[in-house]
């Protein structure tokens, strides 16, 4: 009950398809409280990442994730590019192995969150993607402690990320572009939190398949 490089490849394929399918929706969320490019930015990045992954011969989970990291870093731009780039880079570092179990999933997600916080310095409740990653890490930790599988850990993380994203709706943004709106940012879902939920859902589905 571990995940491997095949999972990583499948994860990116599904994530890319999901980003493309929700491109307009993500930009629409960003249009409401940001500058309306989040879907476009991720579509550009994941299309490139997917192509890179397909061309790659990496044999470890981390190998794939690192490739995704550098590709996102050099194609997404905006705030999400460096944040997701650093997240994947840190996750890659702790997963340069063939197989990852539930504890490994937790470590991987925790490293990703650590990278995002290191770069963006957002706190929980600032209405950013951190509000989706934080409960995801906690959920994976619980599954790992309870002896669940990697797939279980990802499923729990994805669920928690989705709830975390929903929970950003009433918040007033303190970081990122939405913060310029002050009180008017309340009542809208944070686009980065929404894309985080989307990505973790793809990761969980890829794991469930394997």
């Amino acid at each position, binding site marked *: 009950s571990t995940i491997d490089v095949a999972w990583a490849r499948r994860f990116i394929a599904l994530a890319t398809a999901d980003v493309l399918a929700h491109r307009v929706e993500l930009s629409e969320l960003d249009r409401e409280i940001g500058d309306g*490019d989040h879907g476009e930015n991720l579509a550009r990045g994941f299309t490139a990442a997917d192509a890179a992954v397909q061309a790659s011969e990496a044999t470890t989970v981390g190998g794939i994730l690192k490739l995704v990291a550098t590709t996102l870093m050099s194609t997404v731009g905006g705030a999400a*590019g460096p*944040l997701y780039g650093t997240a994947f880079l840190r996750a890659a570092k702790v997963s340069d192995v063939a197989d990852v179990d539930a504890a490994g999933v937790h470590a991987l997600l925790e490293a990703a969150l650590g990278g995002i916080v290191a770069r963006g310095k957002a706190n929980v409740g600032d209405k950013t993607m951190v509000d989706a990653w934080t409960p995801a890490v906690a959920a994976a930790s619980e599954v790992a402690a309870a002896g669940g599988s990697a797939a279980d850990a990802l499923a729990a993380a994805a669920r928690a990320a989705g709830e975390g994203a929903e929970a950003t709706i009433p918040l007033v943004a303190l970081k990122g*572009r939405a913060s310029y709106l002050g009180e008017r940012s309340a009542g809208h879902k944070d686009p980065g939190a929404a894309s985080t939920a989307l990505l973790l859902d793809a990761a969980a589905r890829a794991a469930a398949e394997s």
Partner: protein
Amino acid sequence: MKKLINDPQDVTSEAVAGFVAAHSDIVTQLDGLVVARVGGAVQGKVGVISGGGSGHEPLHAGFVGVGMLDAAVPGAMFTSPTPDPILEATRAADGGAGVLHIVKNYTGDVLNFETAAELADAEDIEVATIIVNDDVAVEDSLYTAGRRGVAGTVLVEKIAGAAAERGDSLAGVLSIAERVNANVRSMGVALTACTVPHAGKPSFELGEDEIEIGIGIHGEPGRHRIPIASANEITDMLLDPVVEDLGLAAGEKVLLLVNGMGGTPASELSIVYLHARQRLEAMGAEVARSLVGNYVTSLEMQGASVTVLRLDDELTELYDAPVRTAALRWGL
């Protein structure tokens, strides 16, 4: 959405290619849409570069040339560029004396320039960074993303560029840039929203008689929405917080910049300028230098921003120094 574009995905690359072709006596195009001075880096001179999302033209590529920027990095529309082209521009600007990164304070720009600076450091190019944050519409706090960089950026670029041209060291150019940033404040208004080509619809909706006060330059909505008022009333709403935040006192000299957001007739900018100038003079300030026009835009948005820079003799001298760029030119 009606625009003079081909494929929305090609807007930035075609616009940069067209810009460079039209100004081939001043600029040249490098990899990754980077726009650099013809002739390459000036040996021994501090390089000065800037960059950011496209859609704010002439910022930044329009300010590449003698006396101002050595290179500019246009990102996708309203999206900060990635580290690679920023690194490319840093290399192109490096004449051995280090490179100043002029970065508008947006999370994306700050993070991408940060990474590029690390990469440049790994290549032994010394980089200093000035984060421009002149927009008083945004609350500045340790716990927020802080104020945005808006129209004041063009003044930082002009004056820091002149300091580099004068032969100042990297630390010297940085300190001049910091002095400009510490003494410049801006605030903007939108009468209409703008439409990013790939989005296909306006960045926000404004009623027939509504305007948005405290807008940024990325098609973000502003701080509050009010019914349309007279030019003089609106100018007061922009100028008052600028002057207050700047703590402007009688007898001080200032530069007054009235910046169009892209779709505003020149006559309206002149009307805003006239009132802002009269207000400043009534406060006892001397409007020693003026700049009126489209310098930091949001595509076709109608609206304007008012920027005041507190001048001292050295900043005035550097502002007056010759400049030869596509969008700002005198003395050369």
